[in-house]
């Protein structure tokens, strides 16, 4: 195995483009190192991105958005008061990943690029309308997060491409988001179903909404139907019922060791309803 420590994403992309065997990028390493130890993956090239300047920084842009380095661990996100105030749902999703020890290393970029349909931080990013900067041998492009995953363990990134930054849009006024997942236990588990809702209010009425469902399809689903079910409403009982139905209709899960298809469909509706209520209360400033 060759271990690389490039100091720019351009260099990382050149190394990645030239790699012929199994390639892995190393940010927090909480997936890659575990997979290597378990014998699941034996990379020929391992590219450590943590030597690139700025990868551990969180920066607010002039328009009020956020740029997050690809090696910023969950515990740092959780301790960033201004970021948490803007995007509590994004941060709470990331902070559900692993234990306290894992939180000290695990990153948004790694959680996204690991390609798990059950990744806890991805629905929140998608609901928030986050994008990632993808750097390749021929330069960089901006990609919506929902276009990154391709299926379990796979992304749509081309050979030689690497995620070099995560960007959250400006939160603006009267917005709120939330991520909820279902696990049978309280900790140390993987989402059986996940759901993130981000919305904006005008008075009591929802004027913008995005709803993302995790672990109910090969990739996280951004559901227009679920969003439409609550846009224009005050999230009354009829809207919640419509949201439940839309989320359940959108879910296309399988039965496996973690849960049955029927269970996941049912709970997708439950979580959508509950997450929407929390996001709504956050938008109203009633809760944090």
């Amino acid at each position, binding site marked *: 195995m060759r271990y690389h420590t490039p100091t720019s994403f351009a260099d990382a992309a050149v190394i990645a483009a030239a790699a012929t065997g199994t390639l892995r990028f190393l940010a927090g390493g909480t997936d890659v190192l575990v997979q290597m130890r378990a014998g699941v993956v034996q990379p020929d090239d391992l590219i450590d991105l943590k030597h690139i300047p700025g990868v551990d920084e969180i920066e607010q842009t002039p328009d009020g958005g956020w740029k997050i380095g690809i090696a910023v661990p969950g515990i740092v996100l959780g301790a960033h008061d201004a970021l948490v105030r803007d995007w509590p749902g994004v941060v709470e999703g990331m902070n559900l990943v692993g234990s306290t020890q894992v939180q000290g290393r695990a990153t948004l970029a790694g959680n996204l690029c690991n390609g798990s349909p059950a990744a806890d931080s991805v629905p929140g990013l998608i609901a928030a309308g986050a994008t990632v900067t993808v750097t390749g041998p021929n330069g960089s492009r901006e990609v919506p997060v929902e276009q990154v995953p391709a299926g379990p363990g796979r992304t749509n990134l081309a050979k030689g491409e690497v995620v070099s930054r995560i960007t959250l849009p400006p939160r603006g006024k009267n917005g709120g988001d939330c991520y909820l997942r279902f696990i049978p*236990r309280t900790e*140390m588990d993987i989402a059986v179903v996940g759901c993130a809702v981000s919305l904006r209010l005008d008075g009591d009425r929802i004027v913008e909404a995005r709803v993302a469902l995790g672990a109910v399809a090969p990739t996280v689903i951004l559901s227009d139907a679920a969003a439409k079910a609550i846009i224009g409403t005050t999230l009354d009982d009829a809207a919640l019922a419509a949201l439940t139905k839309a989320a359940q209709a959108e879910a296309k899960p399988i039965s496996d060791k973690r*849960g049955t298809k029927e269970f996941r469909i049912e709970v997708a509706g439950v979580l959508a309803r509950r997450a929407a209520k929390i996001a709504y209360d956050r938008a109203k400033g009633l809760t944090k």
Partner: protein
Amino acid sequence: MARDDVKTGYKLIGTRPNRPDGLDKVTGRARYGADFSLPGMLHAAVVRSPHAHARIVKIDASKALALDGVKAVVTRADLPTGLTGEDLNLQDNTLAGERALYDGHAVAAVAATSALLAQDAARLIEVTYEVLPHVTDVDAAMAPGAPVIREGVADFSVPEGMHGNVARYMEFGHGDVEAGFAAADIVREHTYKTEATHQGYIEPHACVGQMGEDGRGEMWVCTQGHWYIRRMSAAVLGIDAANLRVTPSEIGGGFGGKTTIFMEPLSLALSRKAGGRPVKLVMSRSEVLRATGPTASASMDVKLGMKSDGTITAGQVYFRMQGGAFPGMSPIGEALPCAFACYDIPALKHEAVEVIANRPKAAAYRAPGSPMAAFAVESLVDEMCRELKLDPIAVRLKNGATNGSKSSYGPVYNVIGLKETLEAAKDHLNYTVPLGPNQGRGVASGFWFNHGGETSVTLAVGEDGTATVMIGTPDIGGSRASIGLMVAETLGIPYENVRVNVVETGALGVNEPTHGSRATFASGKAAVEAARHAMTEMCRRAAADWGIDPEAVEWKDGAAHPAGPNAGKFPPMTIGEIGSKMGSTGGPISGHHEVTAEGVGASFGTHVVDVEVDPETGRTTILRYLVVQDAGTAIHPAYVEGQYQGGAAQGIGWALNEEYVYGADGRLQNPIFLDYRVPVASDLPMIDTVIIEVPNPGHPYGVRGVGETGITPPLPAVASAIAGATGARIRSLPCSPPKVLAAIMAARA
């Protein structure tokens, strides 16, 4: 009621000194199985079958052996032939013979100069399989048309006409059950199922083995019983037990799963083939889950008759259990006697069959068989209590076994504490806390026989008057502290002056493992006798010094005293004085005792659990949990409470989320802790405990075993609480959210 035979007023027994292994464990100094290393040591890896059932056509290790640093490969061809009975089963499980019998079955092992190299080499060993039909479910394994996975497993007990996978049959009972059912106001009958669960000990199996060409060897191993390791390994390898010296490590949990061998002989076989270099073998978590003893899965029919006042008139059970691909491993012989052990019922009929399936060879797990039996019987008792609107504790008090009852399985109970646990549970605050919406309360009682067994203990007096105790039962639950307290109490010296060591097979007579909740009972009883033996000798030394008869000397408060005024006026001679001059008064002083310990006292317990169930997701939260159990005498109460809490935690895991999940291909789907869901700390409230002390007359300090009973009631108690919260009765464990939600929705529809 006060009992004449119960001593009180102990100085040390019942106190809570710091645990002797505590500092080493919290600082990381404690030496567990994988911590042991030797110069020149090799590392081993095991090749395991990816198939549930397959003929092994060919094993080609040439590519592995060609790697620089690979020193030995062992297959079944390297083990002796001609074994029979359980020895053959052990050998078959250590390394597959003609056929791999379950996903994870060991097929070959390799030793190399590093662990990574050994793993690489294992991947290069090419095994050609011919996949055979398999079956993993207990009911499917005895259904018509199920593949017979091994010919001729049935023993003499199996009636003609049963499926070829049935290995054993049992029946017993008393009274006229049909008349009993006829006398009942309601008769109910249901089938209950429990899935296999794993002991889930934190420390994976690990050992270092060394054996020369002369067939003499040594092993350092994580185990509950090193004499068992010695006997079983010697049998598998065809060597004499005396030529194998086995030293136990500190142990990170066992719960019954470390009372047998799985991979240990492989370290010796590899070492012998590698010129006698020591070989370390450490299992991964996935290997532990795939290839070491889970408990049995069970399918159980129960029928009960009850009068409207709660009197149980008759009971009947038919249990089906599978314990893997080897006969004799399912606990039907324990599950049946435990089924109605808490009750005094005039007519009972018990039947059970053991069936084999393509699963790992089951091992003991904390009160083997009792939790499944309790799930079936206690669930049905609860269902009938709810139907008749009777208090579940009142019904158990009405029908419960008591002193002098003839037990459901034959023997008469001497002094037992079931009713005391029921009364204490009824009076506890937890039983009267009002319940809110979506909350429910469950009650169940449980039983374990406890065990005595072969025990050998030596105590040596030190030159400074301290005492060293050598025991052969590895300490998995605080037995060193408890035995130290009993020895100090007996000798009349401070607890800090007694050190209890678990010693190797060369140092004592044969000891059974720490199993059956026997260590504090049996090793403790033998240690007390060994201390008395040493006290007799110390009195003899004092008598010789004073020039009086030994019978005129008595031992109290850590010193020899003249026994009364007629013996003469001498100042007491302390253990320190006697120890300091023992070299010139007759030589070293030690006490020794060995026995197959009799006088075990069964331990009964009653649990009360409150749950809240999310009606929209089926997820269960344990709100509060109470364990009430009879300890006989709690020698070190903190350890007793720890055993109660640990048993409850494991039982809650079994009830809620733990299960072996097999795919259609017969492969285990969840061999990691991410998906084999034991409860994590935040899943559980602090578990409340009440220690009942009804001393066991068969032990000098009244000890009953306390380790196992506690895992028994949680299965039915949790399921009954969920029924109370939701109206939906789950008769098939685990009560996982998908199952509970489906039951809630079915009940609503």
